[in-house]
Every structure is written in structure tokens, then in C-alpha cells.
């Protein structure tokens, strides 16, 4: 259903980064910034998304179970509309994510990128690398023993 991937890919990427960020971390990054007022296009609302898997990992889809998600949409006085779909039930977190989404579409995009998105991306990379490092320490080489009967 994508329109033109080149247009939407950067926005999808920052929305994904915001959705997966820790609520307290996003709040801390936004705290020192001067944020504009907004009107609701859709007030924050918590709900569920049915997560799907595939039979055998590659086959037909099946319903695995739901996850909690909070969404909202807001409009800035300058006209940009920000959307958020974030994991969990934290409405303030969804609001912050939508605010960043809106600001990324206007003249403050570079500021948001440097002050919010880059640190979130760095956190995420560090966290993934730390887990990958611990996993690598538990990598094993199994040997099969040759029995001496022949």
C-alpha cells in the first residue's frame, strides 16, 4: 500500500524510532526544547493491534496475539499534522512522538533530528550492540566425538 517508498521511507523510519523509544528517554530529550502548542486531530487513545506470524516462519499468516498501542494525531498552528502509533498505553508518550513527527515536517526538522532522533538512534544501536555482544559470548562450538570402535 506504499505510495512512493522514497518519499515515505524517512518518515516511516523516524516514526518507528519514536514508537520504540523509552517514554522516559523521549520525555527527557524533549524537556529542554521549546515546543509549540497543538490542536488534536485525534486525541490520544489506547487500543490493541493483533500481531501476526507466519506458519513455519514463511507460510500463511496466523494471529499470534495482541499488543497494546496508543495513537494520536495533532495539528500545529503552522499546519503540519503529526501522527503517532506507539507501543504501550502511555498517552503522553504518544503525544510527544506525534509532536516530533509534526516538527520533522517543518523548518525545525534539523533541530529535531539532532536533539531527539539522533540520540534515540544512538541509544538503540548501543542497546542492540550490547545484546549482540552478550549473545556472542555464549556462542558455542559443539564437537561430535569419534568413537574408537573402528
Amino acid at each position, binding site marked *: *500500500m506504499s505510495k512512493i517508498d522514497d518519499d515515505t521511507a524517512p518518515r516511516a523510519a523516524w516514526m518507528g524510532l519514536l514508537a520504540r523509544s523509552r517514554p522516559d528517554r523521549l520525555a527527557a530529550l524533549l524537556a529542554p526544547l521549546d515546543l509549540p502548542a497543538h490542536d488534536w486531530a485525534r486525541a490520544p487513545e489506547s*487500543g*490493541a493491534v493483533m500481531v501476526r506470524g507466519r506458519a513455519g*516462519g*514463511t507460510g500463511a499468516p496466523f494471529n499470534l496475539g*495482541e499488543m497494546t*498501542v496508543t495513537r494520536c494525531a495533532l495539528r500545529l498552528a503552522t499546519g503540519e499534522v503529526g501522527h503517532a502509533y506507539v507501543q*504501550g498505553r502511555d498517552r503522553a508518550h504518544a503525544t510527544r512522538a506525534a509532536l516530533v513527527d509534526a516538527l520533522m515536517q517543518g523548518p525545525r526538522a534539523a533541530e529535531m533530528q539532532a536533539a531527539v532522533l539522533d540520540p534515540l538512534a544512538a541509544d538503540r544501536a548501543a542497546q542492540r550492540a550490547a545484546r549482540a555482544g552478550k549473545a556472542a559470548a555464549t556462542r558455542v562450538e559443539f564437537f561430535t566425538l569419534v568413537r574408537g570402535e573402528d
Partner: protein
Amino acid sequence: MYVAVKGGERAIDAAHDWLAEERRGDPAVPELSVAQIREQMALAVNRVMAEGSLYDRDLAALAIKQARGDLIEAIFLIRAYRTTLPRFGGSRPVDTGAMDCIRRISATFKDAPGGQVLGPTFDYTHRLLDFALAAEGEARPDDVPPAEAAPGPRPEPAPVPHILDFLGQDGLIQAEAPGEDDPRDLTREPLELPADRALRLQSLTRGDEGFVLGLAYSTQRGYARNHAFVGELRIGTCAVELDIPELGFAVEIGEVELTECETVNQFKGSKTEPPQFTRGYGLTFGQTERKAISMALVDRALRWKELGEDFAGAPAQDEEFVLSHADNIQATGFLEHIKLPHYVDFQSEMELVRKIRAAADRARAGLGEAAE
């Protein structure tokens, strides 16, 4: 039949007050926080998420606290809560091939491409009680040093290919039937049989761990034996993508930790299928590998019809039996309701028994007179 009863309000209130007091336990012992349960009872939290069918660690931890550690009661609370949530949609199927793995093992291939990674596992522990964990104030286990990363350059988390793909390339294992249709949803429509595989997998992934484990074990002991090997078991996080209609593109809305088990099963071939390996599949929320392996074994047993195998009459092959009894909330609801007042019901039963007895007594008396 259960008939509504009135009364007992004060007694019920008092019982619930006492329950709250018992939940708290000895006030001299510090109270558990929801965060402590979430972080330190993580595998209980995972089970409640998997069988409650709702991925939310904080809610699962809260439910465990409220249920005094009774996990089925906690699952019940989560199931009740999830019915209050509006459904925003169904995700794109998660790509487990792109999982960030913390554990990935194969019992069939020693030199699996991508390597074997044990992760944080109970395997190879001695199952001896660790009294250091009970030591208060002495050698505090809270001060355990963080696990060390592997020496050398930090490995980049890279996609780890599914091991069974390598068997698939040689045509030695049956391919999964592709599909993109929206799957039927057990939580939205009543179970209708025959079920398709999607419905069976949904039922198994939210089914009771003990029940699914018992059925899986029965297949290993010979009731519909299908010689399962764990081709691959992996645990890690996967991104969840949702198509957002108002935007017209898909966005990652979060990530979930999953356990995936793919079994390789012996198969001699049938009238319709050549000799080759076949698959069983388990996928569950959280680190729940006992459940994922069990699910894969039962999934394989239930596939007898599509693989052209014989029905051996085993419980694990019987779709109606498995799907009707896997859900512990349905089961416990029906089971536990028999302790609630059934006075009217029972009174009619009692009258019936009295009538039959009286008739039997009369008949015996009649016989006695005839004999004299």
C-alpha cells in the same frame, strides 16, 4: 445449571477485604512493586502475556501481583482487560528471519550457519538450589556483575538465516504453503471445525502451557509419534509493522520478544507426498521455549490430514479435542463454576433421587410380600 442467587453481600465484601490483606502478606516484609515483578519474575510475566494473548509487560506484572501469583487467575485478568481495548488493526506478519536473536540453537545441525548461541538459558545448569540467592545482607546476589560481552570487536547484530531454509534448498523438507489472506481470528468468531492451520496455531500459542506440554509429550511417548527434532529454536526481538490507512504506508509500532521453534519430523511419504522431512511450528510471546517446542510438536501431530497420514486415534491428532480444551480460561471457567451455588439444580436432583428410592423401596416391599 447455575441459577442466580441473592444475598451474602457483607460476607463477600469481608472475604475480598481479607483477600487484599492476604495478598499483601506480612506487612513487616517490603511490598513487591509491579516493576520488580516485571523485571525479576520475567518468565511468569512472559507466560501471562502468551496465554493472556496480550503483549504488555506492565499489565502482565500487575495481573500477577493482583492474582497473588496465580498465573491462570492473572491470565484471566488480562483476557478480561483486552476485551475493553479497541482493535486498531492487524500487523503485517512479523519477519522472524530478521529477529535480533539472543538465543539460537539447533539440535540437528552442529555447524549451523550463523552459529549456535546459548543466550540466558537454564540448560546446562545443575538444578541445585542456589542459597546465595537467599542470603540477605551477606553475599548479596544483587551485586552480580553484568554478563560480559565477547572479547574483540563488537559484533553487529545481523540477520540470522533460518536453518531449515538450507534443507528447503535441497528439497529435503516440505515447503510451507504461501498465503497472504487475513487469518481467521478465534477472539472474534466462535471456533468452527474443521479449523485451518492458522486457527490451530492461534489456539496453540494462547493455549495452556501444561496442556500443550502434556499433549506434546504424549506424541513423544508414542501416541501419534512423529520423531521430532528441534531444527531450530530462537529467541529474540522482532519489529511489528502496521499499515496506517490515514498515512498510506506501514510504520513500525514497536517490537516484541518472541520464541520460535521449528521442528524437523521424519516422514516416510504418503500417497500424495514424497519421502521428505516435514515441519512443526511454534511461535510464542516472550521467552517461553517449553511452550514453543510443545506447540511445534502438537502442530505437527495435527497436520496428519494434509500430509496424508493415518489417524492413529491419538489425542494430539484430534483437532476437536485439542482446540476445545487448550484454553485454560475456558477450562477454568467451566471447572470452577461448579463450586458456585447450584442449590436449585441440586434440589431437583435430590427430589429425583428420593422419588427413585421410594419407588425402589416400594418395589422391594412388594417383592418381599410376594415371597412370604
